[in-house]
């Protein structure tokens, strides 16, 4: 454990003053933007292009997805609280908020799995039509991102319990936080484009 604190303290100054890890995370997120950009473009391109049903209006339950969206957005708040806790050196609060963030994320992913199950039950299998194809791959990709985030949060939590996450490593929490907020923001775009903008119930 001593070695980790040592490494954090003796970090070399960088040319820009930004830590390498943070710069790398920003670059990765910028790159990830184009990943979602390409997926959302595919979805938008095929809006209303399905030849057979079920169509979006046949399956969407907007109030249900709104609630799970709210849960995900709330997790951004708990993420901020977790970061603020470790910056103050309050490890107890850090663990609480990390766990809360992970649980909210898990609730969202669970909600997504349930939603997929219901949709599949109503005939919207992955291969049903163009809508199902683009919908499942886009939201599934996002769900995978959330799942990876949860894995990182739980890893941080176990590190904290093992005493491997001292106050000097607050930046690690900040990095995971950057990723987590990014995934939340992407969901705002996806939710708006996929669920809220109406397409009608048949092919246009």
């Amino acid at each position, binding site marked *: 454990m001593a070695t980790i604190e040592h490494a954090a303290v003796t970090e070399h100054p*960088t040319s820009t003053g930004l830590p*390498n890890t943070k710069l790398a995370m920003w670059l990765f997120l910028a*790159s990830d933007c184009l990943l979602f950009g390409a997926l959302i473009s595919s979805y938008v391109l095929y809006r209303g292009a399905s030849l057979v049903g079920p169509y979006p209006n046949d399956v969407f339950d907007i109030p249900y997805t709104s609630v799970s969206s709210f849960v995900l957005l709330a997790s951004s708040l708990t993420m901020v609280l977790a970061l603020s806790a470790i910056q103050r050196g309050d490890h107890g609060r850090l663990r609480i908020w990390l766990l809360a963030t992970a649980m909210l994320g898990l609730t969202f992913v669970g909600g997504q799995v349930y939603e997929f199950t219901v949709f599949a039950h109503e005939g919207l299998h992955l*291969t049903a039509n163009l809508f199902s194809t683009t919908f499942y791959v886009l939201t599934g990709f996002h769900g995978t991102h959330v799942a990876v985030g949860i894995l990182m949060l739980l890893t941080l939590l176990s590190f904290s319990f093992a005493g491997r996450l001292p106050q000097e490593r607050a930046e690690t929490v900040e990095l995971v936080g950057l990723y987590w907020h990014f995934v939340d923001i992407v969901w705002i775009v996806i939710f708006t484009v996929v669920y809220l903008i109406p397409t009608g119930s048949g092919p246009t």
Partner: protein
Amino acid sequence: MASVSVPAERPRGLLRRPTATTGFWSWVATVDHKKIGILYGVTAFAFFIVGGTEALLIRLQLAQPDQNLLSPSAYNELFTMHGITMVFLVVMPLSAAFFNYLIPLMIGARDVAFPRLNAFSYWAFLFAGLFIYSSWFLGGAPNGGWFGYAPNAVVDPTRGMTFYAIGLLIAGIASTVSAVNLAVTVINMRAPGMTLFRMPVFVWMGLVVQLLLAFSLPIITIGLVELLFDRRFGTHFFNPAAGGDPVLWQHLFWLFGHPEVYILVLPAMGIVSEILPVFSRKPLFGYQFVVFSGIAIGFIGFGVWAHHMFAVGLGPVANTAFGISTMIIAVPTGVKIFNWLGTLWKGDIRFTTAMLFAIGFIAMFVIGGLSGVTHAVVPSDYQQTDTYYIVAHFHYVLFGGAIFGLFGGMYYWWPKVFGRMLDERWGKVQFWTMLVGFNLAFGPMHVLGLQGMPRRIQSYPESLGLTFWNLVSTIGAFTIALAVLLFLVSAVRSFRQPKEMAADPWDARTLEWATSSPPPVHNFDEIPVVHALDEVWHRKYAETEGGRVVPVPAGGSGEPGHGEGHAIHLPGPSYYPFVASLGLPILGYGLIFDWWLAGVGAMVTLAGLYGWILEPSAE
């Protein structure tokens, strides 16, 4: 040695942190950017020989009309694998070899920003290459062209295009990780005084290429994921019967594919921009113009993709717009050409092999660039598209351009990397053999294309009158092979010399020549402080009031002292990057053959990553 100066730590996790600095395992576990650079170079060159052999088989098949040396399906596999190999497994990693080795040295850093991630990138690239090649034995190689057009790529009954999609996804992970790593290195790890506009042009081109990779690879990633889903799970992204549009694939592919062209050629442009000033004994003419035109090429490179799709039927407005943007991108490229010529102008020129390759690059690239401008004219492109004229064009850009530049770089930096010189006489013979062979092989394809010979067709009837130029082209291809053979022999011979190279054998200008050849593990005994563009030159020479260049008297020669570098804290080697990347191809096989295997692959990667985070940190 510096690398063992890391204080002894309590081992944690499954594997002990490796300590060997020589031998096989030191290469597997290395995180030294110089060793990783050499690994990239050797691997890429091995793939170069494989891809070249595929090209020779293709040329043998086409040497005479109505031949049946290769079946049509074998021919499809060969030209597809040739393209994939040369683009993803040769030119990209060979450029990565130069970036890895040189960027930290040129900016005065001890290593890249994330040494273990760097190792991960290399292994993931290697496994991607082996994964794609394993398809020959596991149900057929990719056969739908390196561009993998839908719906052909979706409906093909062999496993080839599934291997293509997954293999390129793994290679994409490797390149994205490496792009982020190297970009952070350039932005954040510069020595004191190394401002952005004191960086060598090669480093600038490195930065532009990494950003191009970071922003274009995600697009092809999604294309490949959609292709994979269509093939493996029956989705409808590119299925016209369900309302899908195969042209979507073309957009996704070329939105990546055109920046990719600049990803392939900008490194060579950077290399040439280093070689020309050294052997002209003049600073690069218009340094800032060269840098900014490189940046401009990077930006505009994202706005020209549909010129690959003029014949698809996007309509006159789109075709005109993309035709114009394509002509515009020729402008910054032309700016660079004139800057290089300006560098040569009134220079004190030494015709070393590196210099010959650099000049060869300019000449061949101009030919390729001009034939490229003829494609920008839409009606003209209608005639040329899918003919050998296109094949001629992009080989002039990617072989006459990229490969010539990379060979120049090998001759130029060989003494720095290996502490030995490549024989200049052999080198010049190689250069002229290659130049003649190259023009014999690809020059006639302009004629063949304009006569209407289509690409990707396994044979042609004698009555078309294409026989003569095809035979010439085949002879040219084998002449190139001879030149490559000469290089290999010369490379082996260079290792018979004693390893005693001066730090700065070329009287060069940039920081990598301020340290010994080869550089010590820690690169610089003392991190250099930079005062000017062409720092090393200014340490050696000053200008009199009359504008004459005179050597700086003793003490300023830039010759390195040989300290031991005892107190320098370097990252320790690690097995985990290897383990984490090993999981990726296993996961890939799982997606093709059986789900449990995918699970195993994911577990191996996860285990590698957790071992990685838990490893006692020395970074």
